[in-house]
């Protein structure tokens, strides 16, 4: 991968990749692995980009696909994932990737969602419209709205009392 490609086509969109990778990883080591894999995949698939969508949409799509694939691989190797409605304190102390504490708490809560729900809420928080979310996730736009409401309710429940 040329330095130019990284600086012009990946670095300006690094924020997108970071936000997504953080939602699918529990440690700094995993995060860096996922980030590198996304960058590689963006480089590998650059020739498939047909300009039917924005480059940022393309990066979102690749980032999500890579994270979902890596997570699937990890799951198949028997790694444990939490799915409770209450945030465990142990995990809270281990996952402080951001300086902002409420944001850390929000990310921990997001990591408790299903893989697809994480993708939906990340795109929603990035202010993507429902049709855009549907396009990126390659799904029907009709039920995205209902799904977002349901996810937000679950996040509120998960975050209840964890910060002021």
């Amino acid at each position, binding site marked *: *991968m*040329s330095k130019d*490609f*990284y600086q012009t086509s990946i*670095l300006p969109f*690094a*924020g997108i*990749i*970071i*936000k997504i990778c953080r939602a699918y990883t529990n440690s700094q080591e995993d*995060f*860096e*692995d996922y*980030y*590198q894999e996304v*960058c*590689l995949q963006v*480089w*590998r698939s650059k020739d498939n980009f047909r300009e039917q969508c924005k480059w940022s949409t393309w990066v979102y799509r690749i980032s999500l696909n890579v994270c979902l694939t890596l997570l699937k691989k990890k799951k198949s190797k028997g790694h444990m994932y939490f799915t409770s409605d209450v945030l465990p304190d142990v995990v809270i102390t281990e996952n402080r*990737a*951001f*300086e*902002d504490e*409420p*944001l850390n*708490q*929000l990310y921990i809560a997001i990591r408790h969602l299903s893989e697809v729900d994480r993708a939906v*809420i990340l795109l929603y*928080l990035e202010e993507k419209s429902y049709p855009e979310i549907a396009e990126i996730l390659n799904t029907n736009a009709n039920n995205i709205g209902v799904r977002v409401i349901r996810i*937000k309710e679950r*996040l*509120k429940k998960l*975050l209840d009392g964890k*910060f*002021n």
Partner: protein
Amino acid sequence: MENSIESIWKKGFLHETSLVAPKINDLYNQKSKHVVDRVKRMFRINQIVIVMMSVLMPAIHYFVDALWQGITASGLMLITLWYNDRIIRSIKTLDQGATSFDYLQAFDRWLNDVLLKAERIVRISYPLYMLIAFSTIGSAWNKQGLPLKLQQRFPHFLSIDTISVVALIVAGLTTLLMVLFSARIYRWEVRLMYGRVFDKLKDTIAEMEKLRHE
């Protein structure tokens, strides 16, 4: 809105420091480790299977009244086990080089060398296994008195002691074929067991090469 998830998200990401991209120094570092670890893991599983087979062989052969053949097969397997163990240990001596590309290339060269050596070995061991198998069949037949029955049924067939010459010719030809085709059979076996991971190794090296030249 004060504590809504939208506001937490927006406020949180106002701090630019939280969105600093990690440095990409060695893109394939983890990937290389995974590929090599996978090959090592598969080799170890292979070793466990050989140990189990070498224990089972004499037991199975005992029941068909061919204990010595079982012990011989087991001995041959233990020699293979010892040789494989030496090979696996030699991975540690590989030159790790300055980058994961150097390491993967060294690993690939090592793998090709190992497979070539193994091909030479199977040219001897596979025919030996074949002879042991024929000897086992012979012993089992002897136990049931089959050769004698065959001799009585087909008296015009030549036989040495009680062993039919036809059976000896078949055994000899099959062993000869095994000498000729053992390397090919071995390559087919390796492809069947390790094909996917070896392909992955080749793909990774090819991609790294492309990445270096772009």
